[in-house]
């Protein structure tokens, strides 16, 4: 299941215009492609299969299927899930209690059954998108709140406090050595040293054929003797497609589990003295030696090192190993010609082993906090007494925009009506901008990501200095669910939100969902003004990009 999930997400990800090294959470990928999740794909396949079985009529195989309790449990779970998705938008009863009704729909109302399943999956997709958008909004909001109110939430504790990994030239901290290696490969195209030891699935040290590069990599990881032997031979192969490559996957398909590792025979090199495996970079070590060979000024030498490391992609692990090796091998003879003592030089060099010196000491924040945690953080902020904050300097440029969000059509007596009738400002130019889809379909669309980005940037640049927003409130109305319908064929607007479901958890139909979805997006824009994730409508329309 894990492999299937990963494969589907990878496939979806390819549909998005993002670079391979850009991190996207699974929910973000699913929201952007607007497709069912891997588990939902399996559910859909099972539900379709159930319908196909029913259409086959009375068959003896039903007995076999009934005996398969595990599969039956899965189907029951699928039906329950489907009912959960459509129970507010259809008359279908609970399948656990009224299976006959469901069976009738499956057997005799095929198009309705197809419509129901399509609606269930569409609803699930929209719910996930809603959840993701709200989550992104809360992440953005809490980030701003932490900056403004200067606090650190309980959850933002450092995860890996003991070891430091990262890339010095990018000043990027990684969580572990694997992350460091992945960054060096993706960003700087540096392959791991182990990959330079072999260029086919045969281990040159023990002459075993492992058939795939994946198996050979695992062998070299665990077989220290072979690894040290190959390191001692002091050669480098040209890197070949490794584990996970198309070629290796093909090899895995052809050979894996069909053949055991096969011992090959052939001439072996004469045994050499085994070298210790180190992370020392010979080139970098050479550079350090040359820099300190005719040392005249320690500060100048340190500056040269800093400049070199900015240009030479180096991991923290390599840098610390190389520098430690260099410092350990310095002796009094080297320092004879130096204007400062050896101890002082060593102390200055050891300063460069502090992660803080390279901005690699920033604490890790949990990558994705749950929506519940983020909401709780906001509630905590709301009940905390904050000391009076210092005022933000109030200055503005000559051109100032007052943004009237959701302005609607102009009419006498509106905000702009009064502003236009006031005496013109003396020291600035005021632009009263109406932002509404009835004014401009693109620049007035609060749901379009590009539009939101534009106005947010204008605010951060200091041009939008004021705003008035009255987000649509129809799905919040307390009149919903009250009164009596005017005629028996027309239902009253049903309640879409309550205190426990403020972001709407039970829309009655796709149309109502779209309404609440628009309101949600526009509320987020009014409250925060930041990007809350793409939406289909804005992408279809081609959100503007104006920088």
């Amino acid at each position, binding site marked *: 299941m894990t492999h299937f999930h990963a494969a589907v997400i990878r496939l979806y990800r390819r549909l998005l215009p993002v670079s391979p090294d850009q991190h996207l959470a699974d929910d973000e990928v699913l929201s952007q492609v607007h497709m069912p999740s891997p588990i939902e794909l399996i559910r859909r396949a099972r539900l379709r299969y159930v319908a196909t079985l029913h259409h086959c009529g009375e068959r003896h195989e039903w007995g076999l299927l009934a005996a398969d309790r595990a599969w039956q449990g899965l189907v029951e779970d699928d039906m329950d899930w489907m009912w959960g998705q459509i129970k507010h938008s259809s008359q279908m009863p609970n399948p656990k209690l009224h299976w006959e009704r469901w069976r009738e729909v499956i057997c005799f109302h095929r198009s309705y059954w197809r419509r129901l399943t399509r609606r269930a999956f569409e609803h699930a997709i929209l719910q996930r998108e809603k959840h993701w958008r709200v989550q992104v909004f809360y992440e953005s909001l809490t980030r701003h709140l932490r900056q403004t109110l200067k606090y650190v939430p309980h959850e933002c504790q450092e995860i890996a406090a003991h070891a430091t990994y990262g890339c010095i030239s990018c000043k990027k901290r990684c969580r572990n050595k694997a992350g460091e290696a992945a960054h060096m490969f993706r960003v700087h195209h540096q392959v791991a040293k182990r990959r330079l030891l072999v260029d086919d699935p045969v281990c040159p040290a023990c002459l075993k054929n492992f058939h795939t590069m994946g198996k050979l990599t695992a062998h070299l990881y665990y077989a220290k003797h072979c690894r040290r032997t190959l390191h001692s031979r002091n050669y480098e192969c040209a890197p070949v497609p490794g584990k996970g490559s198309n070629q290796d996957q093909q090899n895995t398909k052809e050979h894996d589990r069909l053949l055991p590792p096969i011992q090959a025979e052939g001439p072996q090199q004469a045994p050499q003295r085994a070298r210790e495996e180190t992370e020392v970079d010979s080139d970098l070590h050479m550079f350090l030696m040359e820099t300190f060979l005719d040392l005249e000024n320690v500060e100048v030498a340190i500056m040269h090192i800093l400049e070199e490391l900015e240009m030479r992609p180096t991991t923290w692990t390599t840098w610390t190993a190389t520098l430690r090796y260099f410092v350990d091998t310095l002796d009094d003879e080297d320092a004879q010609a130096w204007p400062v003592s050896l101890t002082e030089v060593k102390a200055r060099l050891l300063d460069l082993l502090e992660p803080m010196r390279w901005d690699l000491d920033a604490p890790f924040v949990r990558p994705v906090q749950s929506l519940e945690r983020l*909401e709780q953080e906001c509630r905590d902020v709301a009940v905390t007494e904050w000391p009076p904050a210092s*005022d*933000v300097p109030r200055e503005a440029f000559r051109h100032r925009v007052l943004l009237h969000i959701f302005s609607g*059509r102009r*009419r*006498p007596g509106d905000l702009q009506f009064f502003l236009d009738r006031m005496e013109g400002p003396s020291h600035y130019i005021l632009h009263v901008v109406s932002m509404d889809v009835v004014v401009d379909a693109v620049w007035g669309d609060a749901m379009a990501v590009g539009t939101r980005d534009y106005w947010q940037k204008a605010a951060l640049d200091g041009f939008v200095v004021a705003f008035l927003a009255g987000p649509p409130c129809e799905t919040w*109305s307390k009149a919903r669910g009250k009164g009596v319908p005017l005629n028996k064929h027309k239902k009253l607007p049903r309640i879409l*939100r309550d205190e426990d479901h403020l972001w709407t958890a039970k829309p009655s139909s796709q149309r109502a969902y*779209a309404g609440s979805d628009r309101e949600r997006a526009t509320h987020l824009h009014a409250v925060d003004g930041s990007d809350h994730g793409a939406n289909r409508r804005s992408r279809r329309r081609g959100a503007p990009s104006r920088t």
Partner: protein
Amino acid sequence: MVQTGGAGVVEHPAEPEEEMAASIWKLPAVLALLQAPGVNRHRIAQGLFGAPSAKATDLMVINLPHIVAELRCWMLRKELPHGASIGLTADGQWRTGILKEYPPAMCGALASAFRRELDRTPTKTGSEPKLDDIALWESLTVTMYSSHIGQDFAG
């Protein structure tokens, strides 16, 4: 706006008294934002500014210290109107439709508060907006009036 020192107003129906009723004023995000410096919440009744029914409304106000004085100054009545906007009008429109438009006196109060704040903000020299941006802002500065009150886009 909180971070840049700008001014702003978010308007939405007042928080209902019913315990389970939904309201944006119950959102944790809004509750947290109200703690930010310069952010306040004020309750007004649009009926006091000329709306046909009381229409209790809450305002989230950012960096507009004079808004309360301006609202008081522009108020048209001291008593809340007793009318109710329920159901359909004779021509089949929802009676609440007219309430989507702010009463002119309320707009006047907001305009005065904004203008007062903008006037007392000193001008700094520095970057000028691009000509394209100015052209866009001018194109979105609407000068033609309409009497149409349409449905909002929540459907």
